[in-house]
């Protein structure tokens, strides 16, 4: 059933979106301070400007549409979908003034890519970018990775018809239940622990590599955030290749693994339930996938003699399986090497890894391991049922934070999202191919954008067609929100802007 948005609903949505925008503006204080600390006064001013512009627009939205009304589930979905776009548009303002982007659209591309923790970038001359701007790019990973988790978590609860639904978490303000607050706090707590540990470890590596402490600490923090939040931005144009260090890559893979794990699983393990790590359907699917795909990459390398030697196979092969599967997108080969040097089977393995993605309720993107596991289980169950005597009553179970029954509804929901992802992967690839890119690159880039990975074959560049930039922005946005919120928003807009028919009495 489509709920037509009334004017009051729209005002409510705009009000909350305005709060999002003000929030983004306030966080710009961090790069502002970074710029001042490192004596980059020109870049610091970009953030003062950004704060002023963004906060005033946000406050205007909040003020123009303040309505004390209860949020419902539909509002919450629309606020989430619309809020993500608004927050990205706001975050793009200081980037647009940095001089490192060809246009506001390019800055928006990076802002969306940052918030959705994708990592595709159209930045120009990244190696000369101010620390302040890099701080902001990586902060978008930190905000986006955690923020969307809150939305996704609540969405899952709402779909289950649980006690509290999405709006409580995303609607913020006064109306938050203790449970939701507790969840959100725990998510931030896990993040703080991992990012702090990751920063420390990477800082030690940067010092060993001979970087100055003041540069090293920034690089360590940024890469820790980008790896843990499965983002993929890096402060240098060479991305992870800049450091030329196996040690550095290995530490960041640890963070990627932590980032692709379900926050509920972190909670369970941290409470002391260690067996869950082993029994969980999701970790099993992930472990199985990574092993099979790593083997495929190894076989591919051996067949094409691409990267000879065990160490090369690990650093260029296994590393990318981890990076792609977690949706991080840190890259240790040049974009053009995917086509020229990587070879068929390994290339295919990376495609599958990107499409599959990490765990639900994590910062990773993609279809997600739980859904894949459920779909496989559903198929097995159907085969079993087909061969069993009619009188037999069979119920499939799965283990995910406790034993659960695999009902047809759960299987169908997983299959729906799976189909939406696949359709988006293919559609984006066809559009890329229509723009004249070769099929392999177009598929790779489309999956990378939709699954919020960030590996690139070089299609994504400042000189790519404007239309394709908009397509990828849409894919990153829709993929990160797992389509439902976006589809609700689109449906509502169509319904609300269409001819006015029988309106429900309010």
């Amino acid at each position, binding site marked *: 059933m489509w709920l037509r948005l009334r004017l009051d609903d729209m005002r409510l949505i705009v009000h909350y979106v305005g709060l999002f925008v003000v929030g983004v503006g306030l966080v710009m204080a961090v790069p502002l301070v970074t710029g001042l600390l490192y004596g980059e006064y020109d870049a610091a001013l970009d953030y003062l400007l950004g704060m002023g512009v963004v906060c005033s627009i946000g406050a205007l939205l909040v003020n123009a549409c303040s309505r004390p009304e209860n949020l419902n589930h539909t509002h919450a979905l629309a606020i989430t979908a619309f809020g993500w776009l608004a927050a990205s548009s706001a975050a793009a303002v200081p980037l647009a003034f940095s001089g490192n982007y060809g246009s506001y659209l390019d800055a928006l591309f990076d802002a969306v890519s940052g918030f959705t923790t994708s990592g595709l970038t159209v930045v120009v001359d990244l190696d000369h970018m101010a620390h302040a701007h890099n701080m902001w790019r990586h902060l978008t990973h930190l905000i986006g990775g955690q923020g969307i988790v809150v939305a996704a978590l609540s969405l899952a609860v709402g779909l289950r018809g649980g006690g509290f639904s999405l709006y409580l978490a995303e609607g913020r303000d006064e109306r938050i239940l203790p449970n939701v607050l*507790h969840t959100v706090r*725990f998510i931030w*707590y896990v993040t703080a*622990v991992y990012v702090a540990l990751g920063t420390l470890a990477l800082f030690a590596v940067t010092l060993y590599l001979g970087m100055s402490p003041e540069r090293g600490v920034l690089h360590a923090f940024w890469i820790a955030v980008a790896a843990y939040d499965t983002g993929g931005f890096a402060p240098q144009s060479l991305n992870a290749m800049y450091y030329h260090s196996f040690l550095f890559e*290995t530490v960041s*893979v*640890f963070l990627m*693994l*932590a980032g692709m*794990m379900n926050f509920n699983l*972190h*909670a369970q*393990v*941290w*409470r*002391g*339930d*260690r067996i869950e*790590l082993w029994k969980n359907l999701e970790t099993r699917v992930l*472990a199985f996938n*990574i*092993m099979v795909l*790593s*083997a495929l*990459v*190894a*076989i591919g*390398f*051996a*067949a094409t003699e691409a990267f*000879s*030697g*065990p*160490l090369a*196979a*690990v650093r260029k*092969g*296994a590393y990318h*399986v*981890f990076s792609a599967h977690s949706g991080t997108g840190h890259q240790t080969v040049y974009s053009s090497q995917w086509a020229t040097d990587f070879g068929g089977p390994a290339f295919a393995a990376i495609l599958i890894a990107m499409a599959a993605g990490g765990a639900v309720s994590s910062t990773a993107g993609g279809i997600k391991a739980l859904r894949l596991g459920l779909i496989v289980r559903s198929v097995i169950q159907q085969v079993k049922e087909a061969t069993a005597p009619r009188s037999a009553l069979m119920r499939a179970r799965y283990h995910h934070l406790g034993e659960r029954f695999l009902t047809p509804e759960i299987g169908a929901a997983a299959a729906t999202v799976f189909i939406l992802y696949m359709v988006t992967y293919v559609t984006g690839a066809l559009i890329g191919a229509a723009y004249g890119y070769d099929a392999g690159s177009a598929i790779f880039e489309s999956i990378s954008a939709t699954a919020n990975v960030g590996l690139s074959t070089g299609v994504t560049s400042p000189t790519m067609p404007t239309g394709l930039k908009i397509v990828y922005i849409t894919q990153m946005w829709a993929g990160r929100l797992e389509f439902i919120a976006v589809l609700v928003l689109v449906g509502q807009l169509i319904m609300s802007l269409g001819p006015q028919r029988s309106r429900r009495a309010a």
Partner: protein
Amino acid sequence: MPVHRLQSPFERWRSGLLVEIVASAVFMAIAYGMVAILVWIL
């Protein structure tokens, strides 16, 4: 299990974190090792 739930989720985080890191390390070692050995053999 119910006993754990009564405690704060943060109480045992150190040992939990350690378990996660060790599990990750073991898993990475297996994956890296497998790739290295496969490439070396083939």
